[in-house]
């Protein structure tokens, strides 16, 4: 399906999420626009992944609102249709590499003929063409993540969420994943990514949202954040001192 109307910008207001009595996310507020690669940065357990999932609608907030589009788009189905998340550990179906991509296209209601050609393009783009008939689960960690991105490439969502996509990958795999992320960005997809890897954030981010203990402590341009963070925790983090 071709991209018609954009679902950006994203406006998050007073977002909170708690389980039982524990407040995992507290009053987070931010706006995101297209054209910039946004990285949610912070130590482990800060609430970055939760925030991502709340934005993608995988979880329901305890309070607050997540608004897409200007004017606000009411049809949630339409919103979801233009988003996709890539997870830390890729979820692959028990089928071949190519089937995985075609399945995603089928769920996005792409007609049968178009599916095959788009899957082919995605395989080429991700360098997985030689593996197209292999069972997806027999691929290495890096290859699996490239497959997850290939699926996304075939679909070409307006917004691509990535949750610590290169954890546990070797440097070569990290590199190829990051290259793909750049390609997405260059094709107009909004990148919203979480990581706790400072170096990776420096490589990728145009914009940084610094999250710590469930709170958004800072939202700034990447260069500003890495040069002079506004919060003491931010400073501690880039100095490698903030653990949790």
């Amino acid at each position, binding site marked *: 399906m071709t991209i018609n109307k954009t679902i950006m910008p994203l406006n998050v207001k007073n977002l909170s999420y708690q389980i039982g009595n524990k407040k995992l996310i507290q009053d987070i507020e931010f706006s995101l626009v297209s054209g910039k690669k946004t990285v949610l940065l912070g130590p482990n357990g800060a609430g970055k992944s939760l925030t991502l*999932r709340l934005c*993608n*609608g*995988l979880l329901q907030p305890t309070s607050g609102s997540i608004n897409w589009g200007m004017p606000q788009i009411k049809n949630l*189905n339409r919103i*979801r*249709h233009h*988003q*996709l*998340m890539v*997870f830390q550990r890729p*979820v692959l*179906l*028990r*089928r*071949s590499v190519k089937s995985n991509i075609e*399945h*995603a296209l*089928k*769920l*996005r209601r792409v007609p049968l003929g178009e599916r095959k050609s788009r899957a082919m393009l995605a395989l080429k783009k991700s360098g997985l063409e030689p593996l197209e*008939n*292999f*069972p997806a689960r*027999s691929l290495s960690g890096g290859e699996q993540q490239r497959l997850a991105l290939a699926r996304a490439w075939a679909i070409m969502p307006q917004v691509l*969420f990535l949750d610590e996509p290169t954890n546990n990958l070797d440097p070569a795999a990290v590199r190829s994943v990051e290259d793909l992320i750049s390609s997405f960005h260059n094709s107009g997809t909004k990148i919203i990514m979480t990581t706790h890897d400072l170096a990776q954030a420096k490589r990728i981010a145009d914009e940084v949202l610094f999250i710590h203990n469930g709170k958004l402590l800072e939202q700034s341009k990447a260069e500003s954040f890495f040069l002079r963070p506004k919060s003491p925790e931010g400073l501690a983090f880039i100095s490698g001192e903030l653990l949790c």
Partner: protein
Amino acid sequence: MTSFAEGLSHAIELIISFDNDLIGIIAMSLKVSISAVLISCIIGFPIGASLALCKFRGRNLVLVILNSFMGLPPVVVGLIVFLLLSRSGPFGVLGLLFTPTAMIIAQTILITPIIAALTRQTIEDLWDEYSEYLKSLDSKKIDTMQTLLWDARFSLVIIVLAGFGRAIAEVGAVMIVGGNIDNITRVMTTAIALETSKGNLSIALGLGITLLFIAFAVNGVSQFISSVLSKRAML
């Protein structure tokens, strides 16, 4: 005196001689049980998958009932189906009593809960693994069901075999609704029961061993097909 050796030699004799009666009985057993299993899958897979994916009030009660029905006694099912299909019963006009169709109906009732309950568990486990990805793809319930059922296919094969095993081995239901009529509704299990009651124990044992061979054969063939298919998925 009957010994297992006698039974075994009887079995081999029967099989080698391709005794016509025996072939007819084996064919009827397979026809009835395979049909029942196929219908049970058509009904049971979607029910199992739906129960796995849908939350609703009273779901736990439904699951308890479904799981309990896995243990339905065949004679009880046979009796109930008999009363339903009897000329004096509500569906008597169909004239289905003492036909293979009645036997298929009874066995389907017997196996569907097994297929549904085990499918439910399998799909639920798979859903745990796939749910975030599928939700992110905005998958509709029907798409999710199809996706999970296909991905669970290797487990589902085992479930189907379990259902088939239950069907081909039962005698209570088919005896009552089928009537064990020679050449029409006689199957392996009812033939064994008959020979036993006649005191022809070594023939009965021979038939029993033959039935085991058939069960092995069916499982073996399924295993083979399954591994061929999974190898093709490899390359």
